[in-house]
């Protein structure tokens, strides 16, 4: 029996420890993804709790045709979407499916020389400087980083959180969020670019 089949077997037999482990592993990701659809952290936690009830209810019918993870996230997105519709919220699908339609620069244009510059077109006008290692590792820098991620649009926040905080592969993120390869990359690019810019402005103000 695979590890996953064993886990499902344990859950069906009512093994509380197995359930506790599962909840600890998935809850942060569930809440993050729920946040794409609902406006507050509290509402996202409600959606996650409701998801676990759905998981328990469906456990006996789960046939293992998809992975447990995929199945759990499908339950979550169904609940979150239903709730968003009930609350009269617009689903973020248009933004999810076509993030490239509205262009966004990774770095402000004024950091570069004019594209028509005779000698150095599009070259850095103000070059990035190496970040001081000790400041980078400071707890306050991590707080700024967390704030910058929190300030992102929901879809970008979900992608960077799953990829870079939780270490999911791009394929896992694409499946959970139903994104194309290109769109996943565009969202990740925008998110990382903005977070880098936020860190840069913080670390520079620190050394200036």
């Amino acid at each position, binding site marked *: 029996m695979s590890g996953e089949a064993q886990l499902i077997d344990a859950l069906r037999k009512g093994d509380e420890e197995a359930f506790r482990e599962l909840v600890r592993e998935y809850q942060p990701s569930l809440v993050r993804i729920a946040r794409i659809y609902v406006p507050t952290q509290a509402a996202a936690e409600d959606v996650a709790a409701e998801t676990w009830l759905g998981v328990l209810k469906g456990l006996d019918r789960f046939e293992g045709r998809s992975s447990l993870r995929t199945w759990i996230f499908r339950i979550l997105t169904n609940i979150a979407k239903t709730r968003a519709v009930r609350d009269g919220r617009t689903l973020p699908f248009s933004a999810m499916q076509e993030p490239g339609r509205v262009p966004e620069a990774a770095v402000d244009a004024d950091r570069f020389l004019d594209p028509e510059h005779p000698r150095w077109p599009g070259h850095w006008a103000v070059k990035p400087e190496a970040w001081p290692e000790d400041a980078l590792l400071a707890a306050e820098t991590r707080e700024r*980083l967390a704030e910058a991620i929190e300030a992102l649009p929901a879809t970008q926040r979900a992608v960077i959180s799953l990829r870079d905080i939780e270490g999911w592969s791009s394929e896992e993120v694409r499946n959970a969020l139903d994104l194309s390869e290109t769109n996943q*990359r565009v969202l990740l690019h925008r998110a990382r670019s903005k977070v880098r810019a936020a860190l840069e402005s913080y670390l520079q103000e620190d050394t200036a």
Partner: protein
Amino acid sequence: MTVYAEQLSCQELVELVTDYLEGALSEEETVRFESHIGRCDGCQAYLEQIRQTVALSGRLSAGVLSPEAERALLDAFRDWRSS
């Protein structure tokens, strides 16, 4: 021999960083990207900052479940088990 028909500007390069790190550039684009990085300390610093941003994100805690929330879920589990 590879022909560097068009060299990348720094402004173009920063838009390709994620594609580069994701392995989504063609072989030719990868050569153009790396040859620019090799002779531009500004872009080298930029790429390093993106890598540091990713690494630092990985050190953020993934978020923890509050004891109350965990207790509520375990209660739900016991209800389910006894039903």
